[in-house]
């Protein structure tokens, strides 16, 4: 079988994007997480402080994740029924509501930032943030209460990868043919 990579790319891409139904002013609008962020769609589940920490961490884990709307993606999914939720936390046996998992992750990072740097997590400088990420990224790192920070690292990093590389545009950036059988009708507006 001969494989023509360019042909596959052409066939697979249709400029499709990850778009979700965001609630705005009582109505619902199909937006990509990136558009939702750009339009400052109000967050439904996360507080502004929590979102700031998540965004800062996710951006450090994968530059571009903030602009790609990682916090809007997470916020949107936290509002979904657990069965429909698209967050990878599901695979790791995290018990719903997943909102608690993210809240505790943010709280754990805040605690570490205070202990180590006497600073709020969202305000850490680049070197401090890097140090914090190294700490939470170490397998088995837990808060004194037993919350698994390394799992939080894994999930947030994966959320960042989802919005940056899990979309047809992300595939294109890697020059990987998307080759969809079916684009998700509601969530992808290809």
């Amino acid at each position, binding site marked *: 079988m001969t494989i023509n990579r360019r042909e596959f790319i052409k066939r697979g891409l249709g400029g499709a994007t990850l778009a979700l139904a965001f609630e705005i002013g009582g109505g619902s609008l199909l937006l990509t997480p990136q558009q939702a962020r750009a339009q400052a769609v109000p967050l439904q589940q996360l507080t502004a402080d929590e979102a700031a920490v998540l965004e800062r961490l996710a951006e450090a884990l994968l530059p571009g994740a903030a602009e790609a709307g990682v916090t809007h993606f997470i916020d949107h999914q936290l509002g979904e029924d657990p069965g429909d939720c698209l967050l990878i936390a599901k695979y790791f046996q995290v018990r719903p509501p997943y909102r608690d998992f993210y809240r505790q992750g943010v709280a754990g990072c805040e605690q570490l930032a205070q202990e180590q740097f006497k600073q709020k997590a969202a305000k850490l400088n680049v070197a401090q943030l890097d140090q914090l990420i190294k700490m939470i990224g170490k397998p088995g790192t837990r808060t004194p209460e037993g919350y698994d920070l390394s799992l939080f690292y894994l999930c947030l990093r994966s959320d960042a*990868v989802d919005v940056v590389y899990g979309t047809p545009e992300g595939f294109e950036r890697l020059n990987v043919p998307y080759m969809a059988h079916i684009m*998700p009708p509601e969530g992808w507006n290809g």
Partner: protein
Amino acid sequence: MAKTLEKVDVVIVGAGAAGSVYAAVLAEAGRSVLVLERGVERKLGDLYSSQTWARRLKWGAPHVVEDGPDSIWYNFNAGHGFGGAAIHHYGVWPRYHPEDFELHSRYGKGLDWPYSYETLRPWYDQVQKDVGMAGDAKKEIWRPIGDPYPLPPVLVSNHGKVLARGFEQLGLHTAPIPMAVLTEPYNGRPACIWDGWCDAGCPIGALANPLAVYLPRAQQAGARLQGNAHISRVLTDKKGEKVIGVEYYNREGERIVQPADAVVLCAFTVENSRILLNSANSHHLDGLANSSGLVGRYLMSHPALSVFGMFEEEMQNYLGATGGQLICQDAFPKTGNPNGAFGSRQWEIGLAIKPNDLLGIAMSRPDIYGNALHQFMQEGARFLGSMVGVCEDQPMRDNRISLAKDKDRFGQPLARVTYQVSEEGRKLWQNATKEGVDIFKAAGAKQAWHGPMAGQHIMGGTVMGIDRNKSVTNGEAQTHDLPNLFIGGPSVFPTSSSINSTFTAHAVAMKSAHYMANNWGQLAD
């Protein structure tokens, strides 16, 4: 007060791999069949090509509390909705080997099956013909005797070719991986186009998931499928001698009784035991079919690992099926392993890789972040190779499913899983880590590494056997205690082998379903 519906011949609990086989065979035999499925009523057209969206195929609220030293990775392994976990399984379908059926009598280890490979062989042959399996029986030098595959083998891209070189260098063999994936159009289904979306579910039906083969057959023969039906208990008659149907909760939370002449539990490994234990009544104080005290015991999982390597050559790792391109079972002999480990191993070679998700490029090196991750993604998209090693676990009595204190929204106790990988399985896994990295280096990888131990496939809990004191069901997957209660799926396996469980689960279910059909008069009595 529960609403009671009209009686049917057979209720099948779970519309996954095993349930679909029972439904097709029994409906085609003229039985009135109702399949009750806890999850959503899904169609092939709902299977979007996206690793992110594929997560909808997973349970949202697992009915399992895991508290043992190791995890069985329940949420990764289980699924829900029409098709079950099998809706997005990868279709890697080797056969169990003869020695897997006779572990105790041949080696003094583990358990025996109630029958030999020879007994199951015709059912494997039947299933592979039904689904249209692809492979090369001659090149699979380890393959037990069986009919040749109906279809030619799967695609081998550069990914497979490069990795095969490593095996060859070390004197190991490879063969096209046996797959329940169509390499040519077959029985009205189209051939695979090698886009690697199997993990999101194959919507064209090239992969033999339940929605592609047996559920349509069942429906055509008149079987009814109903979603959002959460079975809580199997009910028995007043004397506790026969089952008379099931109790379930519908989407609205109403309690409903569905009477039936026979019940087949196909709710996957953990849930099968949970339902039996939750069905305890005055005649069956420790749960149904549990006179042996073994319901929930001998839980097994395959200790598995991913091996990765960065190569200098373009791997075309985006091409092919998710389950891989080649297989190696040279490490199948159960004895004579380097560290004295008992049991078998196998390699699935050249899995199609996507950028994101659990088995994606990014997750292959979870320690990398920042700009280095972008660089890694770029490199990985072109040069990353991967394979998966699967190791045998041993059936251990103390690895078990019991009932947890926590309850679900219908007030039923959740399952509690206490599991530890067997020492033998752990040793095999260690051997695999070393061999895997050596193979990649021999294949020319610049860097080669392996991932952590993961649990693949879940088996046991309602094991089959000849002796009713040492097993839950007989060789027809019929419970020893209740003649019209049957159990389908890998939960009846007494041994795990290192073989992916779904082909064998189909063959076992096919045999059992034919037994039911042929002995219906006795069962419905």
